[in-house]
């Protein structure tokens, strides 16, 4: 009998999509024993107990039903109040905020609502692995704007302007950035906002790491002049409140766009789990002190991690946000994947090759410092041993690549 090739039945847009570089490396890691992982993009804290307790109590009270497609009104009101209090941007909780299944769903919805076939989406590179595939799946064309440590891993207004074509419709921003930890300087963001207004671009701003900003204050793009209505602000609870598995995010923006996103959401997801929404509500109501404590912990580890790379002789850009360091490893003579694979084999330390986040990430690795001080200490002892074997002399570099106001090298 002739075997049928069922992949022919799969939509070519999906079939031709390359698998995530992270996924491939993940398979290698699970086969290795005794691994210390610095490859995890999520907090090492369990969701604070008061949030878990509120969720348990909501179940006891019988909150087990669907919610409005938009999400619980009480949660949307709390999100609106939080955005107004933190960034001074006002949204109507009734038709300008949609509760989604994490920021991932919100991103997918925004792309599908905004893009028509061939529309171009500008995005910095390196950046989060799902941005380009989401744009492609929505029929769009990702256009990368390469960044490096010399410009603080930040795009500039000139770079945005130079990348615009008649097909450009969306500018995707993601600061603080995964994987580099770069934060965007407010002044540069103002200039980029001007370019967006002049060229009638919609900005999708993923602000999931906004609360995890250590250098200066996080600037919310929607708060800049002329940007509120042309920004789709995405945020969620995963990183700041250690709630990755709960899958609660939200999108805020002009009602025309958010209503359109809700249309797709109601036919696909219907609504976010009420249990998770109840937990998110508790996080917004009472989670600020716990969140601040976690941010303090990350900040202390951040210094330790950057210094450890400098001590072993690898240049390391000083991240201003998120919980990743992005050291340059090219001096070892290995490329990103070779470095990650050899380190895993020889010293059982897992981190993520930089090129998983786009070609601009080649020559770097992403190191998560969402790990305990003890784990970080042991991981760095092993890594230093490995780097010495690669012929790198310790302490040849004395200072991190500073971010001056988030921009310069």
């Amino acid at each position, binding site marked *: 009998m002739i075997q049928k090739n069922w992949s022919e039945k799969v939509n070519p847009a999906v079939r031709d999509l390359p698998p995530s570089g992270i996924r491939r490396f993940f398979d290698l*890691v699970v086969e290795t024993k005794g*691994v210390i992982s610095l490859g995890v993009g999520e907090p090492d804290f369990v969701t604070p107990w008061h949030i878990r307790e509120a969720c348990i109590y909501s179940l006891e009270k019988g909150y087990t039903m669907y919610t409005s497609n938009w999400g619980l009104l009480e949660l949307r009101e709390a999100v609106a109040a939080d955005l107004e209090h933190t960034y001074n941007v006002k949204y109507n909780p009734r038709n300008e905020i949609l509760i989604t299944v994490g920021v991932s769903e919100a991103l997918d919805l925004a792309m599908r609502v905004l893009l028509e076939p061939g529309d171009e989406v500008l995005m910095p590179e390196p950046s989060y692995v799902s941005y380009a595939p989401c744009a492609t799946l929505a029929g769009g064309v990702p256009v990368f704007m390469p960044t490096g440590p010399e410009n603080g891993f930040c795009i500039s207004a000139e770079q945005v302007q130079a990348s615009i074509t008649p097909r450009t419709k969306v500018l995707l921003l993601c600061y603080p950035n995964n994987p580099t930890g770069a934060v965007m300087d407010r002044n540069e963001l103002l200039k980029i906002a001007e370019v967006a207004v002049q060229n009638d671009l919609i900005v999708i701003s993923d602000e999931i790491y906004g609360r995890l900003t250590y250098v200066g204050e996080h600037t919310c793009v929607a708060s800049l002049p002329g940007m509120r209505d042309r920004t789709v602000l995405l945020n969620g609870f995963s990183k700041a409140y250690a709630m990755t598995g709960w899958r609660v995010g939200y999108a805020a923006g002009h009602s025309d766009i958010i209503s359109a996103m809700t249309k797709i959401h109601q036919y696909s997801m219907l609504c976010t789990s009420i249990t998770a929404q109840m937990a998110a509500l508790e996080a917004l109501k009472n989670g600020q002190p716990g969140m601040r404590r976690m941010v303090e912990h990350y900040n202390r580890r951040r210094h330790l991690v950057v210094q450890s790379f400098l001590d072993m002789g690898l240049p390391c850009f000083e991240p201003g946000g998120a919980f990743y360091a992005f050291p340059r490893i090219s001096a070892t003579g290995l490329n990103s994947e070779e470095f990650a694979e050899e380190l895993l084999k020889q010293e059982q330390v897992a981190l993520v090759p930089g090129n998983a986040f786009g070609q601009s990430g080649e020559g770097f690795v992403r190191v998560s410092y969402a790990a305990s001080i003890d784990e970080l200490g042991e991981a760095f002892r092993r890594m230093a041993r490995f780097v010495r074997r690669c012929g790198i002399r310790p302490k040849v570099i004395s200072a991190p690549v500073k971010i001056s106001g988030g921009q310069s090298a």
Partner: protein
Amino acid sequence: MDNTTREILELLEDNAKLTPDEIAVMLNIDAAEVRGMIKELENQKAILSYMTLINWEKMGEEKVSALIEVRITPQRDVGFDAVAERIYRFPEVRSMRLMSGTYDLAVFLEGRSMKEVSHFVSTKLATIEGVVSTTTHFVLKTYKQDGVIMEDGEEDRRLMISP
């Protein structure tokens, strides 16, 4: 107290193993400054001791703990302090606090057996002049001590690699 002092104290309270060099990097300040501040805090008796919390049960060690409620007669000028000192000086007493309510002192004892604890209460504690009565409660299980959950089931269940 300035912010740096508070941060140093919080870090050491959380993990006494941290070295001054590590603390210096974490707080982005000079290591010599950290060493000086810790020395000063020790001299001021703000830092009293560097403790390790051990779950002896895990090591198969038999220990018996008890909470003794003690009522005492206060004395002129010194109140409860003189009798309290006679009690807390015993090495068997692990901690002790003056309480409001139906009794005066909460005394936490540790011994190798119930017999040893009982013997201490009846022959040493209850016989002190000024001690009016004692009520002994033996500890059946310690769930949490000094902010640490003894049998914490919250392991790291994260995937090794994630986006």
